[in-house]
């Protein structure tokens, strides 16, 4: 990815706009996936009963694939 085509990053001192945050999603996901499995949601926690009740046996909604971000 060339620096020209890089999406906006989340800055330290200013607010990131909603549009820029959305544009940066794929970049962030792909960077993280280079050093850890793409999905790292915990398999269990103390919130399991309520989460699995709400999400039909899962702990949350399924994550979007990188290419759809």
């Amino acid at each position, binding site marked *: 990815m060339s620096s020209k085509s890089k999406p906006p990053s989340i800055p330290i001192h200013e607010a990131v706009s909603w549009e820029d945050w959305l544009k940066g999603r794929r970049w*962030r996901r792909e960077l993280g996936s280079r050093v850890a499995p*793409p999905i790292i949601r915990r398999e269990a926690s103390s919130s399991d009963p309520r*989460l699995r009740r709400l999400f039909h046996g899962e702990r949350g909604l399924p994550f979007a694939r990188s290419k759809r971000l």
Partner: protein
Amino acid sequence: MQADLVKAALADILADTDPTRKAAKLASLCSEVFRQRGIDLVVVGGSAIELLTEGAYTSGDLDFCLLNRNAVPLRERQELMGQLQGQGGPRSWQVAGQFVDLLGPLESLARTPLRKLAGPYGLVQIIQPEELLVERILVSVYPQKSVPARQCARKLAAVALGGALGLDWNEVERLARLPEYRIFPECQKVIEEIANELKVKTPFHPHP
């Protein structure tokens, strides 16, 4: 925020099936409703990591701490969550297909700014990633090794080292050296590992 706008926002959030975007929208709406009552919320924990990294870590709950209050009386919490058509309480509510947890006052040693996302319904404040990174590295080692915490730390470091998230590495070092953390050698090791994997320069001085 007018009731019809809240209603429209809730319908939008409920219909959203992307967990991270949905959490960001709900954080934005909750923050705005509380802000109008003079209460500043900060997203913390796994929800904060998710908003900053897109790490596919979060579950279906959203954790907030209080920035400018030590506590919010139960009556006020229930009224505010009522505006959001929330169900439950006294500290956790189901809102628009997610759980919202209201924890205590924010505990952060970081001196860097809270990160801010100008969400669709209002500004979202997110705990400093410098604090999140050092905290996850500590939890990945003590009291025993934790793979999920290490994976979170690795993703957070990678997103920052790759340039997608502004991070103050001097602040990371300062925090990691504090008596409250005492984790700098491990922190340096993790960051160097990630920097090598990404083929970028480490922000810390190499080991002597």
